[in-house]
């Protein structure tokens, strides 16, 4: 059995993550002896849908706009030290993203850059919208087939491993499971087969812990005085050390802030998990119920005991459809009797919108404390005895198929300047196009038969 350890660092846990987080990760990986990888996980359900729309307008685009923000900072160092990059920065257009990476390498004077992509997640290339709409829904709204503009299946890690076997420097994928960005390199390095279920489970757990970047190293964790984290302004992103027996250690980049402790690992282990005995992926069903964690030195946590069961016979698919418009506006009141003035402002806008015949529900928040804990009717706010003095913001929100309705509500909030209660200020508004998503299930055979890998040449 191989004695080597594979080192996998994270450069981003979502589209919008710190632009420079990968730099110390790459500096640390350079010091390690063994196969080394850098992953960027930048795809949410919405991100992909938006990218599909961009690709419809321009077939060269539709890869992540963060590709140009993240990669130039580390591409030369990664190439020089054979740190391979695996990412879903491909979004809706991995081929377009690959071409851009090759172009970027040329601009930076990096020779012999090689990039491969994974094809096959886009169901719209071989299924009609009505067929997709008829697939069983497991989550989200029922989607009207006529409005579907994207449907992407979560592909497993074997395609990522197949792309790495092309001996490339960078692999760009579209929709795979997030954990596949980590499990793919492990399958490639260790040759884990489909019946190595406990090993696939360990690799999937490592992927789940690494995929959200700094969320396992003290990011999204700090609660001053209760859970203190050092150096949040220089949060170190995680590095996983995985061996052929499925041993996993989570640590972080050298010379950075943040921390890796039992508590940071526990919060991330169960993040967005439902039944811990059955975390479903196309590669393996991960059972975390026997997982134990142990200290393994400063900022090092060892994770043991992941169990694997066979994966499901279906793949999860995210279906995206046009979701109309979200309009939001707000206006702030401060000082004596501010709450009464904000409540009156809400009543005025509510009455005028009713008079206008707007039928879509409008939400009225008075934000100061706890409006996010409240419900549509403001039931908690009404039951509280809040001080009338203070700083309170009226905030309206409407979802509507008719953009003019969203504009009307926003205009009514704006008109409070001269026609509303005294002393309102700081008007802000926006109207944004929305995407509705649903998760459906598709039999894996026909999708996986179409999965392929391809090296993109300059």
């Amino acid at each position, binding site marked *: 059995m191989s004695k080597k350890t594979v080192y996998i660092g994270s450069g981003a846990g979502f589209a919008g993550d710190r632009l420079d987080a990968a730099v110390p990760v790459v500096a640390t990986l350079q010091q390690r002896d063994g196969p080394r990888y850098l992953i960027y996980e930048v795809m949410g359900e919405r991100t992909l849908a938006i990218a599909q729309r961009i690709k419809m307008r321009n077939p060269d685009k539709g890869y992540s706009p963060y590709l140009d923000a993240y990669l130039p900072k580390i591409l030369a160092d990664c190439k020089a030290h054979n740190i391979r990059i695996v990412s879903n920065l491909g979004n809706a257009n991995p081929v377009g993203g690959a071409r851009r990476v090759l172009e970027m390498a040329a601009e930076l004077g990096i020779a012999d850059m090689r990039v491969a992509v994974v094809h096959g997640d886009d169901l719209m290339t071989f299924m009609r919208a009505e067929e997709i709409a008829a697939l069983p829904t497991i989550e989200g709204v029922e989607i009207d087939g006529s409005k579907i503009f994207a449907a992407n299946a979560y592909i497993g890690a074997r395609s990522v491993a197949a792309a790495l076997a092309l001996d490339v420097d960078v692999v760009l994928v579209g929709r795979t499971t997030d954990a596949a960005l980590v499990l793919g390199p492990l399958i490639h390095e260790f040759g884990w087969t489909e019946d190595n279920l406990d090993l696939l489970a360990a690799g999937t757990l490592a992927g789940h812990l690494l995929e959200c970047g700094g969320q396992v190293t003290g990011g999204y964790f700090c609660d001053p005085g209760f859970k203190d984290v050092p150096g949040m302004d220089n949060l170190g992103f995680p590095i996983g050390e995985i061996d052929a027996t499925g041993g996993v250690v989570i640590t972080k980049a050298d010379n950075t802030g943040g921390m890796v402790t039992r508590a940071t690992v526990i*919060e991330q282990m*169960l*993040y*967005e998990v439902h039944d811990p005995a059955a975390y479903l992926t196309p590669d393996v069903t991960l059972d975390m119920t026997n997982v*134990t964690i142990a200290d393994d030195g400063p900022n090092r946590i060892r994770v043991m005991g992941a169990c694997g069961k066979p994966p499901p016979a279906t793949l999860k698919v995210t279906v995206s459809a046009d979701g109309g418009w979200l309009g939001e506006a707000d206006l702030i009141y401060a000082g004596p009797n501010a709450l009464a003035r904000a409540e009156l402002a809400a009543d005025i806008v509510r009455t005028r919108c009713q008079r206008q015949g707007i039928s879509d529900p409008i939400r009225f928040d008075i934000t100061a404390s706890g409006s996010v804990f409240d419900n549509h009717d403001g039931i908690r706010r009404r039951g509280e005895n809040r001080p009338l003095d203070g700083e309170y913001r009226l905030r309206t929100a409407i979802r509507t198929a008719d953009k003019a309705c969203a504009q009307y509500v926003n205009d009514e909030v704006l008109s409070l300047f001269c026609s509303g209660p005294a002393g309102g200020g700081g008007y802000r508004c926006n109207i944004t196009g929305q995407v509705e998503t649903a998760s459906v299930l598709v039999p894996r055979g026909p999708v996986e038969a179409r999965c392929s890998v391809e090296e993109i040449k300059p």
Partner: protein
Amino acid sequence: MSATMRVRLHEVAHARAGDKGNRSNIVVAPYHPDLFAYLVEQVTEDRVHDLFRHKGATACTRYILPNLPAINLVIDDALEGGVNSSLNQDLHGKTLSFLLLGELFVEVPTDLVPNRQG
């Protein structure tokens, strides 16, 4: 039998919320491992469900992971439609871990409550 005191969950445990559709999951872990039995006894499905009923929550399912130790709470229909259709400013319900920590009270041994003096 040591003395006990009633505290907000926030005093003795930490939590993180995540979303999938209109379902929220909240991880709760004690600061001290000896507190875990008290959390298992008192952070019940019914009590958690009650905290989210006003948002339309229809069920709460609890998974207990004694090895970590931690509790995973899955609350159905807690997100006012979820990221697709919620009009809440927090579409994903990311803040809801602190609704739970702030409004659920537990009775625990005084000597297990972290000292916040100074």
